[in-house]
């Protein structure tokens, strides 16, 4: 019965330790900036319009085809008296979060850094009663970035960390 005694002592030792429970809905773990939830569109606060020009790059690269993009002429373009340098701008944009597999490819292919993965808890807590509610439109995709509630992080693929010693030497 030594083995049984050993098992029971092991459980007793965990009985004595501090619980490891995270009180989840009350206490949220701090998310790292690399965290990936679902893609979001970013808002250009300087000109007060989306970064996205509706170039379809992400739509073409998406492996699960969860995006639908429509572009239009930018009414705010310089030639029309506005202050934006974007000739075309996003008109309508849908992402089906129920279909997205969070592979980060849309972020990587974007030429304008207009899309990023949501790295806040709102991206993770997306339960809805109807799966059709998971299809997000342009307003919903932009709102978080527009309100500044995103810890923006757009990775550069293949870029290594800079060696502080080497930087100092220069």
């Amino acid at each position: 019965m030594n083995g049984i005694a050993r098992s029971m002592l092991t459980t007793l030792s965990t009985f004595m330790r501090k619980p490891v429970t995270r009180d989840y809905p009350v206490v949220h773990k701090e998310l790292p900036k690399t965290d990936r939830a679902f893609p979001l569109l970013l808002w250009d606060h300087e000109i007060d319009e989306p970064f996205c020009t509706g170039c379809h790059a992400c739509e073409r690269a998406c492996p699960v085809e969860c995006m639908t993009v429509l572009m239009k002429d930018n009414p705010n373009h310089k030639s029309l008296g506005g202050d934006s340098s974007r000739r075309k701008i996003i008109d309508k944009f849908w992402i089906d979060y129920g279909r997205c597999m969070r592979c980060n490819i849309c972020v990587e292919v974007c030429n304008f850094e207009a899309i990023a993965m949501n790295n806040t808890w709102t991206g993770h807590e997306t339960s809805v009663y109807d799966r059709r509610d998971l299809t997000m439109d342009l307003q919903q995709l932009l709102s978080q970035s527009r309100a500044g509630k995103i810890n923006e992080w757009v990775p550069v693929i293949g870029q290594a960390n800079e060696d502080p010693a080497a930087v100092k030497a220069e």
Partner: protein
Amino acid sequence: MVASRETYGTEFETQDLLLNVGPQHPSTHGVFRMVLQVDGEVVKDVIPHIGYLHRGAEKLCETMDFRQGIGFMDRTEYLAAFNAELSYVMAVEALADIEVPERAQWIRMILCELNRLSSHFMFMGAFGIDVGVFATPFIYAWKEREQILDLFEEVAGDRMMYAYFRPGGLAWDVPHNFKARVREVLKSTRIGINDFDGLLTKDEIFRTRTQGVGVISAEEAIEWGMSGPSIRASGVPMDVRKDEPYLFYDQIDFNVASRTEGDVYARYSCRMEEMWESVRIIEQCLEKMPDYGPIMPEKMPRMLRTPPGEVYIRTEAPRGEYGIYMVSQGGNRPYRLKVRSACLSNLQALKDMSVNQYVADAIIVLGSIDIVLSEVDR
């Protein structure tokens, strides 16, 4: 033991019962279904039904370019997604003849071994439940896995489906405190392994339940094409990391855990030893890994295209040999992709292992193979 025809003649002949286990059953580890033909409590025949989770991942990947395929590889082996990604990107690298920077390889190794640890923790937990310990092993497993998954989240951004290895290297660099974090995780992992060791290894009831149960001999195991801990427990010390070293496994000192009994207990203790070996490997990797350096070759094309050719790459995933056979006819996507899944081959031996054992044994034999159904069905 069992009322047999020879002992009692035909007047006591009984009808065997067909017991349907799964696809919804607590112990089938996913949507696996097996029909047990039982005589009382003794299993006379096992009819496994696989394919409930078939998604055609291989065929899907043939319509995707190489970067898009990575995400699907994650999902074929969700408990050890880094290992699955590794095979895929290594196949692409072999086809396109890309040299991977040294630092990226070290990071890949560390992450793969950590993933092996997390996968084996999962095995320990699920197996403990199969054997019948109430709740404890699963929570033990979960609390250690949580530490490792937290680290993965910091590195790759996701807890299960990483999409982090890319042809040529890594998607982005690890955080600055990576080494310290890995050491921190290893510290907690050691406690976790010790807990499991104390809870199960020496327990008499555990041993009597598992020793001598589900025996498969070396010859049979080889004939079924088993691999990983399941074959090493039968006395065949086959390990791709040792036999055909990839990454930098040839620069690392580690043992291949193997047993000779070939029973459920041997498969369990093989995994237990492997976890300690993984910890050793990670420590050595941390010593040898450079702190800074490139993680991708200088010139990577924006859209990767490979010359025509075919390649078979195998790596040692936690459940055995995870192979990728890839044919390219040029262009940016594979012409044919075949995943050699260790679980599928290991599962074939289920019948040989569980016939003439008790129902409870059939359950733990299934648990001891440690299947991931998404890898079996793909």
